[in-house]
Protein backbone atom coordinates (compact mmCIF):
# COMPACT_ATOMS: atom_id res chain seq x y z
CA UNK A 1 0.00 0.00 0.00
CA UNK A 2 1.29 3.43 -0.86
CA UNK A 3 0.76 6.66 1.00
CA UNK A 4 -1.10 9.62 -0.50
CA UNK A 5 1.03 12.38 1.02
CA UNK A 6 -1.07 15.29 -0.20
CA UNK A 7 -4.30 13.80 1.07
CA UNK A 8 -2.75 12.88 4.38
CA UNK A 9 -1.30 16.34 4.92
CA UNK A 10 -4.62 17.96 4.10
CA UNK A 11 -6.27 15.64 6.58
CA UNK A 12 -3.60 16.39 9.18
CA UNK A 13 -4.39 20.09 8.93
CA UNK A 14 -8.05 20.27 8.04
CA UNK A 15 -9.48 17.42 10.10
CA UNK A 16 -9.67 17.96 13.82
CA UNK A 17 -7.85 15.56 16.11
CA UNK A 18 -9.07 14.99 19.61
CA UNK A 19 -5.96 16.73 20.87
CA UNK A 20 -6.22 19.69 18.52
CA UNK A 21 -4.84 22.69 20.38
CA UNK A 22 -7.06 25.70 20.85
CA UNK A 23 -5.99 29.24 20.17
CA UNK A 24 -6.30 31.75 22.98
CA UNK A 25 -7.62 34.82 21.24
CA UNK A 26 -7.35 37.17 24.23
CA UNK A 27 -3.58 37.74 24.29
CA UNK A 28 -3.47 37.89 20.49
CA UNK A 29 -6.15 40.55 20.33
CA UNK A 30 -4.38 42.57 23.02
CA UNK A 31 -1.11 42.49 21.08
CA UNK A 32 -2.86 43.45 17.85
CA UNK A 33 -4.72 46.32 19.52
CA UNK A 34 -1.50 47.65 20.94
CA UNK A 35 0.22 47.53 17.59
CA UNK A 36 -2.73 49.04 15.75
CA UNK A 37 -2.94 51.72 18.39
CA UNK A 38 0.57 52.83 17.46
CA UNK A 39 -0.22 52.70 13.79
CA UNK A 40 -3.56 54.45 14.15
CA UNK A 41 -1.82 57.36 15.77
CA UNK A 42 0.57 57.42 12.89
CA UNK A 43 -2.23 57.29 10.38
CA UNK A 44 -4.12 60.10 12.07
CA UNK A 45 -1.09 62.26 11.57
CA UNK A 46 -0.85 61.10 8.00
CA UNK A 47 -4.49 62.04 7.44
CA UNK A 48 -3.82 65.53 8.67
CA UNK A 49 -0.86 65.80 6.33
CA UNK A 50 -2.93 64.52 3.43
CA UNK A 51 -5.68 67.01 4.14
CA UNK A 52 -3.08 69.73 4.16
CA UNK A 53 -1.88 68.52 0.80
CA UNK A 54 -5.31 69.00 -0.68
CA UNK A 55 -5.83 72.40 0.87
CA UNK A 56 -2.61 73.71 -0.70
CA UNK A 57 -2.04 76.20 2.04
CA UNK A 58 0.73 78.70 1.76
CA UNK A 59 2.49 77.54 4.89
CA UNK A 60 5.19 74.89 4.69
CA UNK A 61 5.03 73.58 8.22
CA UNK A 62 1.75 72.80 9.89
CA UNK A 63 2.70 72.78 13.56
CA UNK A 64 5.50 74.39 15.52
CA UNK A 65 7.27 72.27 18.11
CA UNK A 66 5.19 72.02 21.22
CA UNK A 67 6.21 70.32 24.41
CA UNK A 68 2.53 70.10 25.30
CA UNK A 69 2.13 67.33 22.75
CA UNK A 70 4.79 65.16 24.35
CA UNK A 71 4.68 62.74 27.30
CA UNK A 72 5.49 64.53 30.52
CA UNK A 73 8.65 63.77 32.47
CA UNK A 74 7.98 61.37 35.36
CA UNK A 75 10.27 61.24 38.32
CA UNK A 76 9.00 57.77 39.26
CA UNK A 77 9.56 56.24 35.85
CA UNK A 78 11.94 53.29 35.66
CA UNK A 79 15.00 53.55 33.43
CA UNK A 80 14.00 53.37 29.79
CA UNK A 81 10.28 53.80 30.44
CA UNK A 82 8.18 56.43 28.71
CA UNK A 83 8.65 59.75 30.49
CA UNK A 84 11.85 58.63 32.19
CA UNK A 85 15.10 60.54 32.26
CA UNK A 86 17.41 59.01 29.64
CA UNK A 87 20.29 59.62 32.03
CA UNK A 88 18.99 56.73 34.14
CA UNK A 89 20.41 54.48 31.43
CA UNK A 90 23.87 55.46 32.50
CA UNK A 91 25.93 52.51 31.37
CA UNK A 92 27.58 53.35 28.06
CA UNK A 93 27.63 50.71 25.38
CA UNK A 94 30.88 49.34 23.99
CA UNK A 95 32.81 51.53 21.55
CA UNK A 96 31.57 49.37 18.68
CA UNK A 97 27.92 50.10 19.42
CA UNK A 98 25.96 52.72 17.54
CA UNK A 99 24.49 53.55 14.15
CA UNK A 100 25.95 52.19 10.94
CA UNK A 101 25.63 55.48 9.08
CA UNK A 102 27.99 57.16 11.52
CA UNK A 103 31.01 54.83 11.34
CA UNK A 104 34.41 56.52 11.62
CA UNK A 105 37.93 55.37 12.40
CA UNK A 106 39.19 56.13 15.88
CA UNK A 107 42.79 56.80 16.95
CA UNK A 108 43.55 53.08 16.84
CA UNK A 109 42.21 52.88 13.28
CA UNK A 110 39.30 50.84 14.53
CA UNK A 111 35.94 51.42 12.91
CA UNK A 112 33.45 52.68 15.46
CA UNK A 113 30.18 54.60 15.32
CA UNK A 114 30.39 58.24 16.39
CA UNK A 115 27.57 59.83 18.36
CA UNK A 116 26.32 63.32 17.76
CA UNK A 117 25.49 63.23 14.08
CA UNK A 118 22.26 64.42 12.47
CA UNK A 119 20.19 61.62 10.97
CA UNK A 120 18.17 63.93 8.73
CA UNK A 121 14.63 65.24 8.50
CA UNK A 122 11.80 62.72 8.69
CA UNK A 123 8.29 63.46 7.44
CA UNK A 124 6.85 59.96 7.72
CA UNK A 125 5.79 57.86 10.63
CA UNK A 126 8.89 55.70 11.09
CA UNK A 127 12.53 56.24 11.87
CA UNK A 128 14.59 53.42 10.37
CA UNK A 129 18.19 52.98 11.49
CA UNK A 130 20.82 50.29 11.28
CA UNK A 131 22.25 49.72 14.71
CA UNK A 132 25.52 47.84 15.07
CA UNK A 133 27.60 46.46 17.91
CA UNK A 134 30.63 44.28 18.44
CA UNK A 135 30.01 40.88 16.93
CA UNK A 136 31.76 39.13 19.80
CA UNK A 137 29.35 40.46 22.40
CA UNK A 138 26.28 40.66 20.21
CA UNK A 139 23.14 38.74 21.05
CA UNK A 140 22.22 39.38 17.43
CA UNK A 141 25.33 37.62 16.26
CA UNK A 142 23.73 34.27 15.56
CA UNK A 143 20.85 35.86 13.66
CA UNK A 144 23.27 37.89 11.57
CA UNK A 145 25.45 34.87 10.93
CA UNK A 146 22.42 32.86 9.80
CA UNK A 147 21.39 35.65 7.46
CA UNK A 148 24.89 35.77 6.02
CA UNK A 149 24.96 31.99 5.54
CA UNK A 150 21.58 32.10 3.81
CA UNK A 151 22.90 34.74 1.43
CA UNK A 152 26.04 32.72 0.71
CA UNK A 153 24.00 29.56 0.07
CA UNK A 154 21.68 31.41 -2.31
CA UNK A 155 24.61 32.89 -4.20
CA UNK A 156 26.33 29.52 -4.57
CA UNK A 157 23.07 27.90 -5.67
CA UNK A 158 22.80 30.51 -8.38
CA UNK A 159 26.33 29.67 -9.49
CA UNK A 160 25.32 26.03 -9.91
CA UNK A 161 22.29 27.05 -11.94
CA UNK A 162 24.43 29.30 -14.11
CA UNK A 163 27.00 26.56 -14.67
CA UNK A 164 24.26 24.15 -15.68
CA UNK A 165 22.85 26.69 -18.09
CA UNK A 166 26.28 27.29 -19.58
CA UNK A 167 26.96 23.58 -20.03
CA UNK A 168 29.96 23.63 -17.71
CA UNK A 169 32.19 20.61 -17.24
CA UNK A 170 31.23 17.86 -14.83
CA UNK A 171 34.18 18.71 -12.58
CA UNK A 172 33.22 22.37 -12.36
CA UNK A 173 29.64 21.44 -11.65
CA UNK A 174 30.66 18.94 -8.98
CA UNK A 175 32.88 21.51 -7.29
CA UNK A 176 30.09 24.06 -7.26
CA UNK A 177 27.64 21.53 -5.87
CA UNK A 178 30.15 20.56 -3.21
CA UNK A 179 30.34 24.21 -2.15
CA UNK A 180 26.54 24.32 -1.93
CA UNK A 181 26.61 21.24 0.26
CA UNK A 182 29.18 22.89 2.53
CA UNK A 183 27.07 26.04 2.72
CA UNK A 184 24.02 23.95 3.45
CA UNK A 185 25.78 22.09 6.25
CA UNK A 186 27.04 25.34 7.78
CA UNK A 187 23.59 26.89 7.66
CA UNK A 188 21.95 23.81 9.12
CA UNK A 189 24.49 23.76 11.91
CA UNK A 190 23.89 27.44 12.67
CA UNK A 191 20.13 26.98 12.63
CA UNK A 192 20.33 24.02 14.98
CA UNK A 193 22.62 25.93 17.32
CA UNK A 194 20.23 28.87 17.33
CA UNK A 195 17.26 26.58 17.96
CA UNK A 196 18.97 25.11 20.98
CA UNK A 197 19.97 28.48 22.40
CA UNK A 198 18.16 29.50 25.57
CA UNK A 199 15.13 31.76 25.36
CA UNK A 200 15.85 35.42 25.09
CA UNK A 201 19.01 35.08 23.07
CA UNK A 202 17.73 37.03 20.14
CA UNK A 203 17.95 40.41 18.58
CA UNK A 204 17.33 42.79 21.41
CA UNK A 205 17.86 46.43 20.57
CA UNK A 206 15.58 49.31 21.38
CA UNK A 207 15.52 52.91 20.27
CA UNK A 208 14.77 55.82 22.58
CA UNK A 209 13.67 59.16 21.18
CA UNK A 210 14.07 61.89 23.77
CA UNK A 211 13.18 65.56 24.09
CA UNK A 212 15.14 67.59 26.61
CA UNK A 213 16.36 64.35 28.17
CA UNK A 214 12.92 62.77 28.58
CA UNK A 215 11.97 59.58 26.74
CA UNK A 216 9.02 60.56 24.52
CA UNK A 217 8.97 57.70 22.01
CA UNK A 218 10.09 54.09 22.37
CA UNK A 219 8.60 50.84 21.18
CA UNK A 220 9.22 47.67 23.19
CA UNK A 221 7.88 45.65 20.25
CA UNK A 222 10.29 47.12 17.72
CA UNK A 223 12.85 44.35 18.08
CA UNK A 224 10.26 41.75 17.02
CA UNK A 225 10.66 42.79 13.42
CA UNK A 226 14.27 43.83 13.48
CA UNK A 227 16.13 42.61 10.41
CA UNK A 228 19.54 41.04 11.10
CA UNK A 229 22.54 42.51 9.33
CA UNK A 230 26.02 41.22 8.91
CA UNK A 231 28.71 43.82 8.61
CA UNK A 232 31.89 42.04 7.68
CA UNK A 233 34.13 44.91 8.65
CA UNK A 234 37.54 44.78 10.23
CA UNK A 235 35.88 45.75 13.45
CA UNK A 236 33.68 42.66 13.28
CA UNK A 237 30.51 44.64 13.71
CA UNK A 238 27.12 43.04 13.51
CA UNK A 239 23.68 44.51 14.00
CA UNK A 240 20.09 44.90 12.97
CA UNK A 241 17.85 47.25 11.06
CA UNK A 242 15.24 48.52 13.45
CA UNK A 243 12.14 50.66 12.97
CA UNK A 244 10.92 53.12 15.57
CA UNK A 245 7.47 54.69 15.14
CA UNK A 246 7.70 58.46 15.45
CA UNK A 247 4.75 58.64 17.82
CA UNK A 248 4.46 59.34 21.50
CA UNK A 249 4.73 56.45 23.93
CA UNK A 250 2.23 55.56 26.67
CA UNK A 251 2.47 56.89 30.20
CA UNK A 252 0.18 55.91 33.09
CA UNK A 253 -3.17 57.54 32.44
CA UNK A 254 -2.14 58.98 29.09
CA UNK A 255 -2.38 56.89 25.96
CA UNK A 256 0.24 57.81 23.39
CA UNK A 257 0.26 57.06 19.69
CA UNK A 258 0.17 60.68 18.60
CA UNK A 259 2.65 61.84 15.96
CA UNK A 260 5.67 63.56 17.50
CA UNK A 261 5.34 67.32 17.09
CA UNK A 262 7.67 68.91 14.59
CA UNK A 263 11.04 69.64 16.10
CA UNK A 264 14.46 68.16 16.80
CA UNK A 265 14.91 65.12 19.02
CA UNK A 266 17.75 63.00 20.35
CA UNK A 267 17.98 59.29 19.52
CA UNK A 268 19.66 56.63 21.68
CA UNK A 269 20.17 52.92 21.05
CA UNK A 270 19.68 50.61 24.01
CA UNK A 271 21.39 47.21 24.03
CA UNK A 272 20.21 44.30 26.11
CA UNK A 273 20.97 40.66 26.64
CA UNK A 274 17.83 39.46 28.39
CA UNK A 275 14.24 39.13 27.19
CA UNK A 276 13.14 41.33 24.32
CA UNK A 277 11.17 43.76 26.48
CA UNK A 278 13.67 43.97 29.33
CA UNK A 279 15.47 47.13 30.30
CA UNK A 280 18.63 47.52 28.23
CA UNK A 281 21.91 47.18 30.03
CA UNK A 282 23.78 49.76 27.98
CA UNK A 283 22.99 52.71 25.77
CA UNK A 284 24.73 54.53 22.91
CA UNK A 285 24.06 58.02 21.60
CA UNK A 286 22.72 60.53 21.21
CA UNK A 287 22.16 61.22 17.56
CA UNK A 288 19.76 63.89 16.37
CA UNK A 289 16.71 63.71 14.14
CA UNK A 290 14.35 66.41 12.89
CA UNK A 291 10.66 65.61 12.64
CA UNK A 292 8.61 67.73 10.22
CA UNK A 293 5.03 67.71 9.04
CA UNK A 294 5.11 69.75 5.85
CA UNK A 295 1.96 70.42 3.90
CA UNK A 296 2.03 70.74 0.15
CA UNK A 297 2.47 74.13 -1.41
CA UNK A 298 3.43 75.62 -4.74
CA UNK A 299 1.76 75.00 -8.05
CA UNK A 300 -2.00 74.97 -8.21
CA UNK A 301 -3.50 71.56 -8.77
CA UNK A 302 -5.91 71.31 -11.72
CA UNK A 303 -9.58 71.11 -10.90
CA UNK A 304 -9.77 67.57 -12.29
CA UNK A 305 -6.89 66.35 -10.12
CA UNK A 306 -8.00 63.72 -7.56
CA UNK A 307 -7.71 65.89 -4.48
CA UNK A 308 -8.01 63.02 -2.03
CA UNK A 309 -4.80 61.51 -3.40
CA UNK A 310 -2.32 61.52 -0.47
CA UNK A 311 0.87 63.13 -1.75
CA UNK A 312 3.96 63.67 0.35
CA UNK A 313 4.27 67.13 1.86
CA UNK A 314 6.57 69.54 0.07
CA UNK A 315 6.70 72.08 -2.74
CA UNK A 316 4.76 70.99 -5.81
CA UNK A 317 7.05 71.96 -8.65
CA UNK A 318 4.86 70.80 -11.50
CA UNK A 319 1.63 69.01 -12.38
CA UNK A 320 1.27 67.77 -15.94
CA UNK A 321 -1.60 65.87 -17.57
CA UNK A 322 -0.67 62.57 -19.19
CA UNK A 323 -1.74 61.40 -22.59
CA UNK A 324 -4.58 58.98 -22.08
CA UNK A 325 -5.49 60.42 -18.70
CA UNK A 326 -3.79 60.88 -15.39
CA UNK A 327 -1.15 63.15 -13.99
CA UNK A 328 2.57 63.53 -13.51
CA UNK A 329 3.32 65.38 -10.27
CA UNK A 330 6.75 66.50 -9.06
CA UNK A 331 7.03 67.25 -5.33
CA UNK A 332 10.31 68.67 -4.02
CA UNK A 333 11.33 67.14 -0.68
CA UNK A 334 14.63 66.65 1.11
CA UNK A 335 13.23 64.24 3.68
CA UNK A 336 15.50 61.31 4.53
CA UNK A 337 12.47 59.01 4.46
CA UNK A 338 10.72 60.53 1.43
CA UNK A 339 10.17 57.27 -0.42
CA UNK A 340 9.07 55.35 2.65
CA UNK A 341 6.77 58.18 3.70
CA UNK A 342 5.18 58.20 0.24
CA UNK A 343 4.44 54.51 0.64
CA UNK A 344 3.04 54.97 4.13
CA UNK A 345 0.72 57.70 2.87
CA UNK A 346 -0.59 55.45 0.11
CA UNK A 347 -1.06 52.36 2.28
CA UNK A 348 -4.38 53.45 3.87
CA UNK A 349 -5.98 53.98 0.45
CA UNK A 350 -4.31 51.02 -1.25
CA UNK A 351 -6.78 48.58 -2.71
CA UNK A 352 -6.08 45.57 -0.49
CA UNK A 353 -7.58 43.06 -2.90
CA UNK A 354 -5.04 44.11 -5.48
CA UNK A 355 -2.09 44.94 -3.31
CA UNK A 356 -2.03 41.84 -1.13
CA UNK A 357 -0.72 39.36 -3.70
CA UNK A 358 1.90 41.84 -4.83
CA UNK A 359 3.30 42.64 -1.43
CA UNK A 360 4.10 39.44 0.44
CA UNK A 361 5.54 39.22 3.93
CA UNK A 362 3.30 41.98 5.29
CA UNK A 363 5.22 44.80 3.74
CA UNK A 364 3.69 48.21 3.39
CA UNK A 365 2.72 49.49 -0.02
CA UNK A 366 5.95 50.34 -1.77
CA UNK A 367 5.36 52.47 -4.85
CA UNK A 368 9.07 52.33 -5.61
CA UNK A 369 8.92 48.59 -6.19
CA UNK A 370 5.41 48.07 -7.46
CA UNK A 371 2.63 50.19 -8.87
CA UNK A 372 0.07 50.64 -6.10
CA UNK A 373 -3.62 50.29 -6.86
CA UNK A 374 -5.44 53.06 -5.02
CA UNK A 375 -9.14 53.40 -4.27
CA UNK A 376 -10.19 56.84 -3.03
CA UNK A 377 -13.20 57.68 -0.91
CA UNK A 378 -15.09 59.00 -3.95
CA UNK A 379 -14.86 55.53 -5.52
CA UNK A 380 -12.31 56.47 -8.15
CA UNK A 381 -9.44 54.02 -8.68
CA UNK A 382 -5.91 54.87 -9.72
CA UNK A 383 -2.53 53.30 -10.30
CA UNK A 384 0.27 55.19 -8.59
CA UNK A 385 4.01 54.83 -9.05
CA UNK A 386 6.63 56.99 -7.38
CA UNK A 387 10.21 57.61 -8.44
CA UNK A 388 12.95 59.66 -6.80
CA UNK A 389 14.20 62.47 -9.00
CA UNK A 390 17.02 64.99 -8.90
CA UNK A 391 15.90 68.45 -9.98
CA UNK A 392 18.07 70.71 -12.13
CA UNK A 393 19.27 72.62 -9.10
CA UNK A 394 20.30 69.36 -7.47
CA UNK A 395 17.47 69.26 -4.98
CA UNK A 396 15.74 65.90 -4.53
CA UNK A 397 12.11 65.31 -5.33
CA UNK A 398 9.55 62.58 -5.84
CA UNK A 399 7.71 62.14 -9.12
CA UNK A 400 4.22 60.65 -8.90
CA UNK A 401 2.71 59.01 -11.96
CA UNK A 402 -1.02 58.75 -11.35
CA UNK A 403 -3.15 57.03 -13.96
CA UNK A 404 -6.83 56.08 -13.83
CA UNK A 405 -7.85 52.44 -13.65
CA UNK A 406 -10.60 51.51 -16.05
CA UNK A 407 -12.46 49.09 -13.81
CA UNK A 408 -11.92 46.95 -10.78
CA UNK A 409 -11.35 43.99 -13.08
CA UNK A 410 -8.23 45.69 -14.26
CA UNK A 411 -6.91 46.16 -10.74
CA UNK A 412 -4.57 43.22 -10.90
CA UNK A 413 -3.23 43.95 -14.36
Amino acid at each position, binding site marked *: *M*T*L*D*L*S*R*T*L*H*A*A*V*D*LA*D*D*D*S*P*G*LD*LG*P*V*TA*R*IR*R*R*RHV*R*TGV*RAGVGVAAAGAVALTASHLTQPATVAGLPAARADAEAGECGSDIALLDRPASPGAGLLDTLVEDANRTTVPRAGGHLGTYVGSWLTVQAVEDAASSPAGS*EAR*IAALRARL*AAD*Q*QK*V*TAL*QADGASADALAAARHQVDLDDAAL*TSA*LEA*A*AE*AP*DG*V*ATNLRLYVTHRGTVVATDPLAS*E*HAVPLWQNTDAGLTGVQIDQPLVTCDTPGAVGGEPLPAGTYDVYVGYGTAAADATPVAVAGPWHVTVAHPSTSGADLPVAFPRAMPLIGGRVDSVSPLDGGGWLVNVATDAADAAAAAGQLL*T*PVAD*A*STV*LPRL*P*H*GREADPLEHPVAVRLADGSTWTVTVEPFQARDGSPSLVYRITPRISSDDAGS
Partner: protein
Amino acid sequence: MAGWEQVLDELVRTRGAALVRYATLLTGDARAGEDLVQDALVRCFGSGRTLRETEAAEAYVRRAVLTIFLDGHRRRQRWTARLHLVARDEATAGHEPGVALRQDVRAALLTLRPRLRACVVLRFYDDLTVPEIARRLELSDGTVKRYLADAIALLERVLGPIDDVHSMDVQLTGGRS
Protein backbone atom coordinates in the same frame (compact mmCIF):
# COMPACT_ATOMS: atom_id res chain seq x y z
CA MET B 1 -16.45 45.33 17.46
CA ALA B 2 -14.15 46.70 14.76
CA GLY B 3 -14.14 45.14 11.31
CA TRP B 4 -10.74 43.57 11.75
CA GLU B 5 -11.83 42.01 15.04
CA GLN B 6 -14.83 40.40 13.35
CA VAL B 7 -12.60 38.89 10.68
CA LEU B 8 -10.08 37.79 13.31
CA ASP B 9 -12.79 36.27 15.46
CA GLU B 10 -14.30 34.43 12.50
CA LEU B 11 -10.90 33.25 11.30
CA VAL B 12 -9.83 31.92 14.68
CA ARG B 13 -13.23 30.35 15.34
CA THR B 14 -13.46 28.54 12.02
CA ARG B 15 -9.83 27.96 11.07
CA GLY B 16 -7.77 28.68 14.17
CA ALA B 17 -7.16 25.03 15.03
CA ALA B 18 -6.31 24.25 11.39
CA LEU B 19 -3.82 27.09 11.33
CA VAL B 20 -2.17 25.74 14.46
CA ARG B 21 -2.02 22.27 12.93
CA TYR B 22 -0.49 23.80 9.77
CA ALA B 23 2.13 25.58 11.84
CA THR B 24 2.72 22.41 13.82
CA LEU B 25 3.67 20.63 10.62
CA LEU B 26 6.54 23.07 10.45
CA THR B 27 7.51 23.37 14.10
CA GLY B 28 6.88 19.80 15.13
CA ASP B 29 5.36 20.91 18.40
CA ALA B 30 1.79 22.05 18.98
CA ARG B 31 2.72 24.71 21.52
CA ALA B 32 5.39 26.16 19.27
CA GLY B 33 2.87 26.00 16.41
CA GLU B 34 0.38 27.96 18.48
CA ASP B 35 3.04 30.58 19.27
CA LEU B 36 3.87 30.79 15.60
CA VAL B 37 0.24 31.35 14.61
CA GLN B 38 -0.17 34.01 17.29
CA ASP B 39 2.86 35.87 15.95
CA ALA B 40 1.51 35.58 12.41
CA LEU B 41 -1.91 36.90 13.45
CA VAL B 42 -0.30 39.86 15.19
CA ARG B 43 1.82 40.58 12.15
CA CYS B 44 -1.11 40.38 9.72
CA PHE B 45 -3.84 42.07 11.74
CA GLY B 46 -1.54 44.52 13.50
CA SER B 47 -0.21 45.97 10.29
CA GLY B 48 -3.27 48.14 9.76
CA ARG B 49 -3.94 46.40 6.48
CA THR B 50 -7.58 45.87 5.63
CA LEU B 51 -8.51 42.20 5.81
CA ARG B 52 -12.18 41.86 4.99
CA GLU B 53 -12.59 38.22 4.03
CA THR B 54 -11.77 35.25 6.20
CA GLU B 55 -10.51 33.15 3.32
CA ALA B 56 -8.07 35.79 2.14
CA ALA B 57 -6.99 36.42 5.72
CA GLU B 58 -6.27 32.73 6.23
CA ALA B 59 -4.03 32.62 3.17
CA TYR B 60 -2.27 35.73 4.36
CA VAL B 61 -1.74 34.33 7.86
CA ARG B 62 -0.50 31.00 6.48
CA ARG B 63 2.06 32.84 4.41
CA ALA B 64 3.15 34.80 7.49
CA VAL B 65 3.45 31.54 9.45
CA LEU B 66 5.88 30.21 6.89
CA THR B 67 7.81 33.45 6.71
CA ILE B 68 8.23 33.72 10.46
CA PHE B 69 9.17 30.06 10.71
CA LEU B 70 11.83 30.37 8.04
CA ASP B 71 13.10 33.69 9.31
CA GLY B 72 13.93 31.98 12.53
CA HIS B 73 12.00 34.38 14.69
CA ARG B 74 10.70 31.49 16.68
CA ARG B 75 13.63 29.75 18.29
CA ARG B 76 11.87 27.86 21.02
CA GLN B 77 11.46 24.61 19.20
CA ARG B 78 10.69 21.81 21.54
CA TRP B 79 12.46 18.78 20.24
CA THR B 80 11.32 16.72 23.19
CA ALA B 81 7.96 16.31 21.55
CA ARG B 82 9.10 13.70 19.04
CA LEU B 83 6.45 11.16 18.28
CA HIS B 84 6.75 7.47 17.60
CA LEU B 85 7.57 7.06 13.97
CA VAL B 86 5.65 3.94 13.06
CA ALA B 87 2.15 3.49 14.35
CA ARG B 88 0.29 3.44 11.09
CA ASP B 89 -3.28 2.24 10.87
CA GLU B 90 -5.18 1.34 7.75
CA ALA B 91 -5.90 4.07 5.24
CA THR B 92 -8.70 2.67 3.17
CA ALA B 93 -9.53 4.14 -0.20
CA GLY B 94 -12.51 6.45 0.02
CA HIS B 95 -11.90 7.28 3.66
CA GLU B 96 -9.82 10.08 5.12
CA PRO B 97 -6.44 9.03 6.47
CA GLY B 98 -6.66 7.89 10.07
CA VAL B 99 -5.34 9.69 13.10
CA ALA B 100 -2.36 7.36 13.52
CA LEU B 101 -1.32 7.80 9.90
CA ARG B 102 -1.53 11.56 10.23
CA GLN B 103 0.64 11.34 13.32
CA ASP B 104 3.12 9.18 11.44
CA VAL B 105 3.40 11.76 8.69
CA ARG B 106 3.78 14.60 11.15
CA ALA B 107 6.49 12.67 12.97
CA ALA B 108 8.26 11.82 9.73
CA LEU B 109 8.25 15.47 8.74
CA LEU B 110 10.18 16.21 11.91
CA THR B 111 13.07 14.15 10.63
CA LEU B 112 13.55 16.66 7.80
CA ARG B 113 15.59 19.82 7.97
CA PRO B 114 13.40 22.93 8.26
CA ARG B 115 13.72 24.02 4.65
CA LEU B 116 13.00 20.54 3.33
CA ARG B 117 9.99 20.43 5.61
CA ALA B 118 8.82 23.77 4.29
CA CYS B 119 9.17 22.55 0.70
CA VAL B 120 7.07 19.45 1.45
CA VAL B 121 4.34 21.47 3.17
CA LEU B 122 4.22 24.02 0.37
CA ARG B 123 4.15 21.32 -2.30
CA PHE B 124 1.77 18.81 -0.76
CA TYR B 125 -0.47 20.96 1.44
CA ASP B 126 -0.45 24.36 -0.23
CA ASP B 127 -0.32 22.62 -3.62
CA LEU B 128 2.20 25.09 -4.99
CA THR B 129 4.24 24.32 -8.08
CA VAL B 130 8.01 24.14 -7.96
CA PRO B 131 8.47 27.63 -9.44
CA GLU B 132 5.99 29.02 -6.91
CA ILE B 133 7.84 27.36 -4.04
CA ALA B 134 11.13 28.63 -5.39
CA ARG B 135 9.80 32.17 -5.51
CA ARG B 136 8.31 31.91 -2.03
CA LEU B 137 11.51 30.55 -0.49
CA GLU B 138 13.82 32.63 -2.65
CA LEU B 139 15.55 29.54 -4.03
CA SER B 140 16.23 28.35 -7.54
CA ASP B 141 13.83 25.90 -9.17
CA GLY B 142 16.60 23.31 -9.27
CA THR B 143 17.27 23.62 -5.57
CA VAL B 144 13.59 23.15 -4.77
CA LYS B 145 13.48 20.05 -6.96
CA ARG B 146 16.53 18.68 -5.18
CA TYR B 147 15.09 19.48 -1.76
CA LEU B 148 11.81 17.79 -2.65
CA ALA B 149 13.61 14.74 -4.00
CA ASP B 150 15.73 14.48 -0.87
CA ALA B 151 12.72 14.99 1.35
CA ILE B 152 10.67 12.36 -0.43
CA ALA B 153 13.51 9.87 -0.19
CA LEU B 154 13.85 10.49 3.53
CA LEU B 155 10.10 10.29 4.11
CA GLU B 156 9.84 7.04 2.17
CA ARG B 157 12.47 5.48 4.40
CA VAL B 158 10.12 6.03 7.32
CA LEU B 159 6.69 5.84 5.74
CA GLY B 160 7.20 3.46 2.85
CA PRO B 161 6.30 4.22 -0.76
CA ILE B 162 4.52 7.49 -1.36
CA ASP B 163 1.94 7.69 -4.09
CA ASP B 164 2.42 9.75 -7.26
CA VAL B 165 5.35 11.82 -6.06
CA HIS B 166 7.57 10.55 -8.84
CA SER B 167 5.11 11.54 -11.52
CA MET B 168 4.49 15.04 -10.27
CA ASP B 169 4.42 18.07 -12.51
CA VAL B 170 8.17 18.26 -12.08
CA GLN B 171 10.94 15.85 -12.83
CA LEU B 172 12.48 15.16 -9.47
CA THR B 173 16.16 14.54 -9.50
CA GLY B 174 17.76 12.06 -7.19
CA GLY B 175 14.86 9.64 -7.19
CA ARG B 176 13.89 7.40 -4.36
CA SER B 177 16.48 5.63 -2.33
